């Protein structure tokens, strides 16, 4: 399996605040990794370091390159959508395609045009005349038409309505993703991408608090719904988080086998959002 990203002891500080604190992780080809963290956790800083937009300490290698020093080479094989608003507002769609076609060796204009033909976006339209959702469609069509090995999405669907959000991810999966391609995505709407992910990373206060595959998740974490005296007993096993729902106790356990927990009540695979709350609250 090809290793695309390798981070060892990566840190980044702004003055006295440490945005990313001694982080190590790897990302292999063919994964869809969700990077989940609260605001100000260091997500965006970490992504920027990986995209060569900011310098950092430690060793960081993306596609075998030093992102900050070899940004141009890196950008031939990496794509990113930072946020919906970054396409220049004055540009015409056809000019945008002209520009990318001539600077990007991996861009297939026919593919982009084919994808755009399925939308309402006209080649003569200016970006400023498009709705927010259409701008995202445009950006996504461009990115799908670039034969990149790694795609980085930082809150790609922020501010979009539900229809565009669903469409965005289904297009991404159908038109872009295959075994050769790798996606790293951050979002606040975890529920929407939960089923897409193959891997998940939690980041809090600049540190990685969880880094696991979705397959391994159920064997590591169990959610238990219980009540009354059984809850008391279960609590002795040391849940990492506990909450009340409709008079019942919902606990999340880490490293406790599901068979053991089944004696105390119903067990489930925890939702990413709940697990996230548990891990982040547990860490603080």
């Amino acid at each position, binding site marked *: 399996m090809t290793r695309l990203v390798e981070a060892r002891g990566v840190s980044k500080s702004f003055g006295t605040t440490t945005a990313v604190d001694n982080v190590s992780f790897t990302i292999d080809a063919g994964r869809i990794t969700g990077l989940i963290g609260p605001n100000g956790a260091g997500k965006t800083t970490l992504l920027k370091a990986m995209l060569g937009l900011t310098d950092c300490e430690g060793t960081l290698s993306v596609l075998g390159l030093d992102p900050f020093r070899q940004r141009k080479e890196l950008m031939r094989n990496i794509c990113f959508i930072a946020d919906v608003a*970054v396409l220049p507002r004055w540009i015409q769609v056809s*000019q945008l395609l*002209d*520009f990318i076609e001539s600077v990007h060796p991996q861009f297939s204009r026919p593919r982009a045009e084919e994808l755009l033909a399925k939308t309402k976006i006209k080649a003569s339209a200016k970006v400023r005349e498009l709705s927010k959702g259409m701008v995202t469609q445009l950006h996504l069509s461009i990115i799908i038409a670039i034969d990149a090995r790694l795609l980085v999405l930082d809150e790609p669907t922020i501010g979009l309505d539900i229809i565009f959000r669903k469409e965005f991810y289904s297009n991404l999966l159908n038109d872009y993703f295959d075994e050769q391609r790798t996606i790293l995505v951050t979002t606040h709407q975890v529920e929407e991408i939960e089923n897409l992910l193959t891997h998940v990373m939690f980041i809090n206060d600049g540190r990685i608090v969880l880094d696991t595959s979705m397959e391994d998740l159920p064997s590591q974490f169990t959610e238990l719904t219980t009540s009354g005296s059984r809850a008391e007993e279960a609590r002795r096993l040391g849940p990492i988080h506990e909450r009340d729902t409709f008079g019942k106790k919902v606990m999340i356990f880490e490293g406790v086998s599901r068979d053991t927990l089944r004696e105390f009540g119903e067990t489930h695979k925890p939702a990413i959002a709940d697990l996230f709350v548990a891990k982040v609250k547990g860490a603080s």
Partner: protein
Amino acid sequence: MIQTQLTLLRRELWEHRSIFITPLVVGLVVALGALTGQVAVSAFDQAVDLAILGASNLGERERAVAITVLMIAVSTPFVIAMSILAVFYLLDALYAERKDRSILFWRSMPVTDAETVVSKLLTAILVIPLITFAAIVATSLVVLAVSGIWISMRGGDGGQLIWAAAPLFDNFLVSLIFVLALPLWLSPFAGWFLLVSAWTKRSPFLVGFLPLIVAPMIERILVGTSYLNELIFVRSGKVPLFSESGFDPSRYMFSDSDRPMIAEDAATSLLSYVDPVRFLSSPGLWLGLLVCALLTAAAIYIRRYRDDS
């Protein structure tokens, strides 16, 4: 490499339509001005007829000089507009992309920061001057054609008076040399405005001009010298393009009593006054280019290292 640079230059023209619109507007104003001027003086029937008669009796040299003066008059507004346009362009070039955050998109393309910043400098010191030159040529031809037709309509020989006498090629060549040389001479300012554009968080215009005005004043008050004043204001007006003894507009055509006269020793075109050796061997030019290179490198550094998106 060159392909990328050409694409980047094209991109600048897409974004900054004022690069075309400004010379076009100046050209229209100048051409209309020439036309209305001629219509206006037509009221003075006798005087105009006398003037045309007088012009017909001038020697070929004098007529050529007169047309050269006309062509200088046509070109001047373009050069002024070009300078203003270039300043506004440079102040906007690296500022607007940060303000609307499109810098994140541009930096997601496989293009280096150096390539991008250089394309913006080239737009200001090469592309804008070349477009200005094209506008000067087109407008001059229109003004001369209108004048020729007008003279013919009044019974003069427009063909002989205007076209036979006009040192067109020489004058256009001088225009081209001038619009290319001026930005090189003023290149430290181009570098400075580019740096301000890359650096400032707000009001690039103010940040760009205030130091240029305030710094010489501070030097004057605190140190009592005026080197900065000399560097910023006096040097700017002294492009060493024309031979030292040569071009002096006040001597070129001077007013004796109330009739304009053509100086005895005026050459028929400005070409003979252009002194490329003096220009290219001027230390001021090369020092200026060095300052421009350093300021541009600083702008590249800031675009690359600063992360304020």
